């Protein structure tokens, strides 16, 4: 057969979460893969091909799901992909150690009228546990070819491909001319007496039945699946069938005394139990597993939270301590690149654009890449090992009180480091509403870039209690995020509480290949974004702080020089030059679009006690929050390269009579709450779309303003109590 060129096959790779689907996908496709998104949603879609004996097997990775009930976005994506794109075959990846529940999904695939091949994955683990599966008998009983595989070791791959080839070849023999599987689950006499008539009336409309498998739809109608009724609308006898289905549902519920969808699930499990009894045997008595031994400690009622905090601290420490080195190298590199461009490109717009706009902007974004790599390596490690469910177990009770989910905890804590990877990490949340809430409150967890602002202000105005002041702001941020989550869940994201039903997989050794794969995916997505949206934003910020160009008049330079010399005796030329440079930069910023905006919006910030300088700094802060510090450096004419430790900048801020300790405290709160930097905003857009980005922006701005105004006015009223600290 191998000499004939066969048509390529499109194969959907589906299965339960934790069944080892990703490692099997990697073993099947090797390096030939690409990652995209399913249309309209942020569910990742991996595709890859394998060539064997003149045939191309094109695999599409379908999200891991437990059932085709379509309660989660993953289930909707999987169902729609299979129904609407009609792959040639489905490979269902089954966890051999947990066959009953895994077969539950497999049987639903079989009903779809598309050939199914079962990959009995993790068969080595099952063997070690003393679970003996009679593969041939199981295949025979279910009418689904089964192949033993071990995805992590790449074994059983060729047998699986051969089996796919054979199953497609047999399709005509198995399915005849319609898509009715010759062999599929029987629901027992009573249910069948209701399924079969429905199936017959659905099949009567041949073009419709060619689109939607009649038996599957009949069962789904009895399960009261809303989407099934929507699809039924295309049938020429939709009204009649709907009535008949509703009547059948009523009959089943009366007959069994419970809901029809539950009865169907019970029948499926009954059928599976029958099949498993004949073919799966436990040859060894299960002993206390290693997983259980570990969980006795890790999931201990009192230790669980403590261990979770330790793990978190470790992830945090490793990411930001280890990441600081390559981050520093990248900053040096981009600094060098800027210098190189500086010396090559003549002075003017182009140089300024390239050095300050493009290289400065993209450089600051790329310097996050090491953090993202380390962070996602550690997170993938925890996920692959199976710790994430344990973390959810430890924290769910507390977070649930605020309308959050146990799985929100990692993304939120990561927000203390950097919002960008934190927002991306929220993908682990399965419910869309939980994901939106989590993403919207992540920016309130003060990120690392906000710290320099706090250090500067606390150091300048609360020198005695600077450390406590910074801690206080962090704590306020965490409290705001919890309250905001609660408010959002009670208002715009109201709805039934998402059930917390989460599999607790056994601990499993991760594979390096799998980990690197995850890391590469996440990192490449971030880099793609940095190359486009963030670069555009960096250039925009550069433009509004540069244009229109303004030159300090010679007369002013002269008078500034004289007054500076008068105030500071014994200054050298260098000090004067640096003073003048800062003055020029300040004047040009003051006259730029950003400065104009700052002055224009100053009245809006009056109730918060902010003058135009603070307004400008918050505008430039959208590039990155630490830019606020360097903006102050320029505006207070201290220097163009000031940092938060600079005593001269602290002195300059204190010398400004406008800038009271109360204003400083309000500004810290304001920086904490207002929308995050462009990088984070564009990540929100990528994850949730423009609508939610707009909502987040307005929500945070409004909250920041209200909080700032309230604190400032109360502070004024109580006679500057804060100043007394």
């Amino acid at each position, binding site marked *: 057969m191998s000499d004939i060129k066969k048509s390529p096959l499109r194969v959907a790779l589906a299965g339960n979460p934790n069944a080892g689907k990703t490692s099997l996908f990697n073993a099947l496709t090797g390096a030939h893969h690409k990652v995209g998104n399913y249309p309209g949603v942020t569910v990742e879609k991996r595709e890859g091909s394998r060539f064997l004996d003149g045939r191309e097997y094109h695999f599409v990775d379908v999200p891991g799901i437990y059932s085709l009930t379509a309660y989660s976005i993953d289930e909707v994506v999987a169902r729609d992909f299979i129904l609407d794109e009609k792959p040639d075959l489905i490979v269902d990846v089954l966890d051999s150690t*947990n066959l009953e*529940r895994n077969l539950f999904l497999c049987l639903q695939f079989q009903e779809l009228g598309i050939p199914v091949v079962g990959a009995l994955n993790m068969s080595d683990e099952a063997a070690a546990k003393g679970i003996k599966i009679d593969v041939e008998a199981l295949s025979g009983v279910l009418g689904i070819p089964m192949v033993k595989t071990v995805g992590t070791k790449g074994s059983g791959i060729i047998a699986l491909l051969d089996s796919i080839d054979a199953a497609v070849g047999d399709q005509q023999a198995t399915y005849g001319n319609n898509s009715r599987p010759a062999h599929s689950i029987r629901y027992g006499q009573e249910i069948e007496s209701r399924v079969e008539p429905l199936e017959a009336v659905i099949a009567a409309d041949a073009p419709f039945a060619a689109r939607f498998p009649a038996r599957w739809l009949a069962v789904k109608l009895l399960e009261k699946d809303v989407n099934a009724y929507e699809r039924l609308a295309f049938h020429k006898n939709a009204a009649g069938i709907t009535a008949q289905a509703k009547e059948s549902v009523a009959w089943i519920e009366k007959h069994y005394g419970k809901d029809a*969808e539950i009865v169907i699930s019970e029948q499926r499990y009954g059928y599976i139990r029958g099949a498993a009894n004949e073919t799966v045997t436990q040859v060894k008595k299960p002993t206390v597993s290693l997983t259980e031994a570990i969980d006795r400690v890790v*999931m201990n009622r009192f230790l669980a939270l403590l261990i979770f905090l330790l793990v978190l601290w470790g992830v945090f420490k490793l990411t930001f301590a280890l990441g600081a080195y390559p981050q520093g190298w990248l900053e040096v590199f981009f600094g060098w690149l800027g210098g190189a461009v500086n010396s090559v490109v003549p002075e003017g717009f182009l140089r300024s654009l390239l050095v300050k706009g493009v290289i400065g902007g993209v450089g600051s974004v790329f310097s996050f890449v090491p953090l993202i790599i380390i962070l996602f390596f550690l997170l993938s490690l925890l996920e692959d090992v199976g710790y994430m469910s344990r973390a959810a*177990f430890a924290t769910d009770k507390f977070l*649930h009180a605020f309308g959050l989910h146990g799985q929100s905890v990692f993304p939120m804590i990561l927000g203390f480091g950097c919002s960008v990877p934190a927002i991306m990490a929220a993908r682990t949340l399965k419910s869309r509403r939980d994901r939106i809430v989590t993403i919207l409150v992540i920016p309130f967890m003060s990120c690392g870039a906000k710290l320099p602002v706090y250090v500067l202000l606390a150091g300048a105005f609360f020198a005695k209690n600077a450390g406590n002041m910074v801690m206080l702001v962090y704590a306020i941020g965490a409290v705001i995020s919890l309250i905001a989550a609660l408010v959002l869940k009670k208002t715009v994201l109201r709805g*039934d509480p998402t059930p*917390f*039903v989460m*599999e607790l997989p056994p601990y499993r050794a991760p594979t390096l290949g799998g980990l690197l794969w995850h890391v590469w995916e996440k990192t490449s997505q971030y880099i793609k974004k940095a190359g486009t949206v963030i670069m555009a934003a960096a250039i925009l910020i550069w433009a509004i702080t540069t244009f229109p160009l303004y030159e300090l008049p010679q007369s002013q330079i002269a008078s500034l020089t004289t007054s500076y010399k008068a105030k500071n005796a014994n200054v050298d030329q260098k000090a004067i030059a640096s003073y003048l440079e800062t003055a020029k930069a300040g004047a040009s910023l003051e006259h730029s679009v950003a400065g104009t905006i700052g002055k224009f919006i100053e009245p809006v910030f009056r109730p918060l006690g902010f003058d135009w300088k603070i307004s400008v700094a918050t505008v430039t802060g959208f590039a990155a929050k630490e830019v606020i510090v360097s903006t102050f450096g320029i505006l207070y004419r201290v220097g163009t390269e000031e940092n938060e430790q600079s005593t001269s900048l602290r002195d300059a801020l204190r010398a400004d009579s406008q800038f009271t300790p109360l204003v400083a405290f309000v500004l810290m709160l304001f920086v904490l709450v207002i929308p995050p930097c462009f990088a984070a905003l564009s990540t929100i857009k990528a994850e949730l779309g423009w609508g939610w980005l707009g909502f987040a922006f307005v929500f945070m701005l409004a909250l920041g303003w209200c909080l700032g105004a309230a604190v400032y006015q109360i502070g004024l009223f109580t006679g500057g109590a804060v100043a007394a600290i």
Partner: protein
Amino acid sequence: MVVSDAPAGANFRVIGVKTCKEVGKRLADMGFTEGAEGAVVRSGFLRDPLQVKIRGYDILIRRSEADDIEITPVGDWNTT
């Protein structure tokens, strides 16, 4: 009797889920169907959520969900 009544270590047999919207069907799909055998393994701080063994695998559910799963005891709960 429901799952949330069972102490840690207690074995049970499922009678059925008191279905209510999404969660009932979801629990049934995860294996909580009539006749299935399971056990409560442990519960978290403040006794929530629960780790439950069902059909040979482990699952985490909140006490509020466990309230919807009707069971009969298997074995002697007092000795567990």
